[in-house]
């Protein structure tokens, strides 16, 4: 019977839970660890390397030993700390890192073989042969040493991300944090108070100390109540501030549903908050550290503060016969509190020269061996031992920006250096102010200072509280015998391992850490780092500050990967952009392809078509024979207006635009300043000072950004205004010999060749609806692009299909579009690869040298203009039945497939139904003079080697008669 009186648990309700298949009960307010201890379960896990039996040593998030697999099925979660799992009805947990059972673990043989597993064992043993590593060593080590296991199922829960804003973020709701929050809250500041615990109050809940004459826990509860009533204060329990980022931004993980069997419908399991602050106060308290002695890792041995926390907060006696081993006065509180609970407590005070030199009990503590100051030894039968070697301020977050902590002799611990992070101050135990009075005072004072910066006046109201000194005399480890004294229990690092590291020259703290793995496990050494440093300092004869300390990166405690992803998973990974014809195309059974966020119809199969090629070939042939319709809304559209718009276009396009007449469209080639092609498209002049530019789908955003850059940064006094209209207009291409006849059925104006010649544009109406018409062609056929306000886009595709019925017109997708542009020799994404110049593309003459334009100068530099550079060519297989592959390289006949023989590559390959064989575009060295040559196109990955002939890239209608028809 381990439950004793008192504690902040609700005994009126009983919660059932199981651990390793055995059923137990606990109460609301329990953690898994407190409930297990209350059920006399001390053994909770096995250690990482030696598989030593281990129990809980702490009562908080620093826990290295009691890590378990929580829940089952898809929600199974490995490596959760029993000390922070809030008990709920039906909770299931399993121990991990043991086989077949926690009490009998076959891998505990490692413990017997420990001389072979000392620090650096892996590095020394698994060196060679190298080939063994991946197949043999690593799998063995992983099986033996791994911690928990994954469910290997999809996480059924959802996670949110969100954004909060405040004047003052207070990290930690112990006495310092509560005092700061109360001071700032009463002054009207916007405050967020976050604490990782489900019950705010910090150590006050674990102590019997008084504040203002009442119990500290009651004061905390009353303060939380007052804060909760303030609209300007946001209380965030179950929320771990996990890191400090630039400019006052903090990350916090709120465990919204982890205390429930499963989240409520629609609710996330956890939320990752990005908190924007003007100031922050770190009031995260301190973490107790052990003193190392032989066999100090048995279940039942724990930190003295934890032992008292279990008694005071959770009403649990870990043992009826208890010892406390301490080097400071805080340990005496454990003695007093446990005695007050009626337990039999023995004090071993290291300051008097008394020490514990060994312990016994295979699966749990049975006795300890004490060596008194006078040298006499005695054995004491105890089932619980509390150890206190002092307290380390929880300064982790304060060192997130590389601020080095400084040593404080008074408490023999590192404290945060002032101004480690701009806008962050540290209060209470986190700053090394260890008494309750000091916590309340520093919390309030830092809040007052932070608020003064914001122009707010706050007043401190500090209640009466103890201000006792710690009276600590450093004691790190007990010098005795040859056995192992544990420094880092989670990673099984002993005093001996630190000695070995020193002996082998790994003296620097960073080397010590990596050589021994000290502090590298899921607990990140919260209870062990300083102890390890102290041992190294003693061995090297240096002081601890001279030895140094490691600093901390986020996160403060482990963070589930799911919460970092938030909602961006599966279908919600990114938004979808639908084209105006999407609804219609879906009805037709279209196959869609992702183009950035856009979904575009790739091809539209008809009944009886079983392969994509059948659909695409039909779409191409029918377009060239009669008419084809394609949704081209995704092309970027940028409205350019202003009296200098023409001049602006001359600057941003390599070719001339100033001379473009109103009502005309021109193809434009846009370079980057380094002379490479950035994008291409058409620009139409709709009015005297009004143009609309189109961009490729992929470059719509970068081109708009570039134009704004040119307008604002390079030529700030040009009269040009820009706005995107991509989404405002539904735009369809209608191509093929019957394109005009088709459109004439819908358009209210005369669009005959005379009235609306090639490259004309203008405002028209479609059955009375405002529209724009552009006579431009990407397919090489007689073609138009017609645009209507997007709300009419669905009606427009249906009207076009209906009007096209008499011509047996098709709607074609991006595949057919690609085939037709290759047949016509138009460059697109594969050729616009960021490494190609206008000259490479056969468009060198378009770059006007009579005006200054972006990229003009550098397009002329040496290397860019070399006559033996790459040029765009057409390619066809000599044997028409052979298939070309994109990415294949040109080689001369008989040349070996070596880089020095490389002649260029095939950029785009399609099957041309028009020609009846495979065709390609490619970049070939000196390609403009090599028409008719026969080369090989070799793809070593696809294992193809095809004889090809170099031809003009214009496979269809090279003279352009069709599009002028």
């Amino acid at each position, binding site marked *: 019977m381990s439950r004793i009186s008192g504690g902040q648990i609700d005994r009126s309700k009983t919660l059932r839970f199981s651990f390793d298949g055995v059923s137990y009960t606990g109460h609301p307010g329990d953690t898994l660890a407190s409930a297990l201890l209350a059920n006399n379960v001390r053994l909770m896990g096995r250690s990482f390397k030696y598989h030593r039996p281990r129990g809980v040593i702490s009562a908080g998030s620093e826990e290295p030993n009691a890590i378990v697999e929580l829940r089952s099925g898809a929600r199974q979660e490995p490596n959760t700390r029993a000390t922070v799992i809030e008990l709920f009805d039906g909770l299931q947990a399993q121990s991990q890192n043991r086989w077949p059972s926690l009490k009998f673990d076959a891998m505990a043989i490692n413990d017997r073989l420990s001389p072979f597993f000392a620090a650096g064992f892996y590095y020394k043993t698994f060196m060679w042969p190298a080939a063994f590593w991946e197949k043999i060593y690593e799998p063995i080590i992983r099986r033996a040493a791994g911690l928990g296991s994954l469910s290997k199922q999809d996480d059924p829960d*959802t996670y*949110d*991300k*969100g*954004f*909060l*804003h405040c004047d003052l973020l207070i990290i930690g709701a112990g006495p310092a944090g509560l005092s700061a929050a109360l001071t700032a809250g009463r002054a009207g500041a916007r405050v967020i108070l976050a604490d990782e615990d489900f019950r705010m109050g910090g150590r006050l809940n674990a102590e019997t100390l008084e504040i203002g004459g009442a119990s500290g826990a009651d004061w905390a509860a009353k303060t939380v109540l007052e804060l909760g009533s303030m609209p300007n204060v946001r209380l965030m329990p179950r929320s771990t501030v996990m890191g400090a980022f630039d400019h006052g931004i903090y990350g916090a993980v709120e465990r919204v549903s982890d205390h429930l069997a499963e989240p409520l*419908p*629609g*609710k*996330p399991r956890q*939320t990752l908050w*990005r908190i*924007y602050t003007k100031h922050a106060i770190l009031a995260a308290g301190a973490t107790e550290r052990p003193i190392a002695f032989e066999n100090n890792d048995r279940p039942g041995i724990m930190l003295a503060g934890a032992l008292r926390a279990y008694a005071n907060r959770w009403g649990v006696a870990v043992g009826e016969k208890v010892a406390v081993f301490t080097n400071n006065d805080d340990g005496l509180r454990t003695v007093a509190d446990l005695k007050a609970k009626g337990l039999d407590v023995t004090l071993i005070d290291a300051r008097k020269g008394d020490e514990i030199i060994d312990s016994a009990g295979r699966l749990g503590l049975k006795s300890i061996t004490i060596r008194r100051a006078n040298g006499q030894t005695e054995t004491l039968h105890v089932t619980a031992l509390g150890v206190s070697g002092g307290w380390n301020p929880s300064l982790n977050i304060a060192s997130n920006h590389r601020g080095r902590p400084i040593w404080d002799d008074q408490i023999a611990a590192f404290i945060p250096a002032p101004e480690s992070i701009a806008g962050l101050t540290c209060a209470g135990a986190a700053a090394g102010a260890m008494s309750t009075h000091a916590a309340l005072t520093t919390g309030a004072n830092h809040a007052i200072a932070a608020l003064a910066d914001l122009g707010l006046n706050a007043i401190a109201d500090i209640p009466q509280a103890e201000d006792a000194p710690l009276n600590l005399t450093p004691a790190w480890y007990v010098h005795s015998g040859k056995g192992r004294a544990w420094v880092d229990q989670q990673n099984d690092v002993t005093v001996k391992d630190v000695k070995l590291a020193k002996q082998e020259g790994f003296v620097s703290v960073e080397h010590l850490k990596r050589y021994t793995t000290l502090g590298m496990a899921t607990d990140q050494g919260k209870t062990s780092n300083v102890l390890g440093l102290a041992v190294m300092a003693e061995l090297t004869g240096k002081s601890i500050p001279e030895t140094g300390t490691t600093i901390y990166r986020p996160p403060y405690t482990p963070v589930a990967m799911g919460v970092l992803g938030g*909602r*961006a998973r599966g279908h*919600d990974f*990114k*938004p*979808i*952009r*639908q*084209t105006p014809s999407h*609804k219609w195309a879906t009805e037709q059974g279209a196959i869609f392809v992702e183009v950035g966020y856009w979904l575009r119809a790739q091809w539209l199969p008809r009944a009886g078509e079983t392969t994509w090629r059948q659909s695409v070939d039909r779409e191409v042939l029918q377009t060239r024979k009669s008419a084809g319709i394609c949704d081209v*809304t995704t092309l970027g559209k940028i*409205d350019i*207006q*202003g*009296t*200098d718009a023409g001049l602006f276009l001359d600057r941003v396009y390599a070719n001339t635009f100033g001379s473009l007449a109103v009502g005309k469209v021109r193809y434009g080639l846009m370079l980057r300043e380094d002379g490479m092609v950035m994008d291409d498209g058409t620009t139409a002049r709709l009015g005297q*000072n*009004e143009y609309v530019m189109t961009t490729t789908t992929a470059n719509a955003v970068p081109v708009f950004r570039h134009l704004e850059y040119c307008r604002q940064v390079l030529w700030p*006094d*040009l*009269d*040009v*205004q820009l*706005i*995107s*209209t*991509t*989404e*405002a*207009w539904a735009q369809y291409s209608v191509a093929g010999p019957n394109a005009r006849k088709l459109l004439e059925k*819908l358009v*209210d104006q005369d669009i005959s060749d005379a009235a609306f010649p090639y490259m004309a544009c203008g405002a028209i109406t*479609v*059955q*009375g*609806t*405002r529209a724009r018409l552009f006579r431009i062609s990407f397919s090489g056929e007689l073609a138009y692009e017609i645009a209507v*306000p*997007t*709300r*009419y*886009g*669905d*009606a*427009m595709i249906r*009207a076009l299909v209906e009007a096209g019925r008499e011509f047996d017109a098709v709607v074609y997708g991006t595949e057919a579009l690609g085939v037709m542009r290759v047949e016509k020799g138009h460059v697109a994404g594969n050729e616009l690869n960021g490494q190609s110049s206008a000259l490479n593309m056969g468009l060198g003459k378009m770059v006007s040298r009579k005006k200054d334009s972006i990229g003009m100068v550098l397009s002329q530099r040496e290397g860019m203009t070399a006559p033996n550079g790459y040029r765009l060519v057409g390619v066809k297989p000599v044997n028409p039945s052979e298939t070309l592959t994109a990415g294949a390289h040109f080689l001369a006949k008989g040349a070996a497939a070596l880089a020095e023989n490389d002649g260029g590559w095939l950029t785009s390959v399609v099957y041309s139904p028009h020609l009846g064989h495979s065709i390609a575009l490619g970049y070939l060295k000196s390609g403009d003079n090599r028409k008719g040559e026969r080369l090989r196109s070799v793809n070593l990955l696809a294992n193809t080697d095809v004889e090809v002939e170099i031809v003009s890239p214009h496979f269809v209608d090279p003279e352009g008669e069709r599009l002028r028809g």
Partner: protein
Amino acid sequence: MANPLKSLTPLGHDAPITETIGAVTITENTGTALASLAARLGYEVEVASIAQTAAIPLPGPGRIEFAETYAAIWLGPEQWMIEAPFATHEDITAILKPIFTETASITEQTDAWVRFDITAPDLPALFERLFNYDLRRAGVGAATRTVIDHLGCYVIRRADTEVSILGPRSSAHSLHHALTTAAKATF
């Protein structure tokens, strides 16, 4: 001449829809015509004066201002989005261009955007899951562009309990999904 073309809402319906999730209502609003208005270089003063005469408000950065027929949102330096009732201003540029003549560049934006009007008693609690803009501090009349699930959107606080989101029309479904998901997670 065949029948005139029929319009669809951004969510693909014949008429706007309203969804209610607890205390939250999310309504697609197609009742507003939009046009961007940018002062031509050197005509900033003229534009301000013409706008005043025409009862078109031109607010400062981060704001929307309402007048009888028109409202306007600040988009960028010397650039605004003008709102007017769709029923009377469907061809909004044809109405605005003669007012401003060559002092301003005016571009139709009605169909570039989907507008959702969201009402809830505690709107900031909903939107803190969606964007980093500090809506709790932003009073009525605040209007700014920010990001919701990768989408650039305008957030307009029309009233204490009413916010409009203007998002890219092609992503109307994704935006609607984000709004309803957040509403379910919040309330």
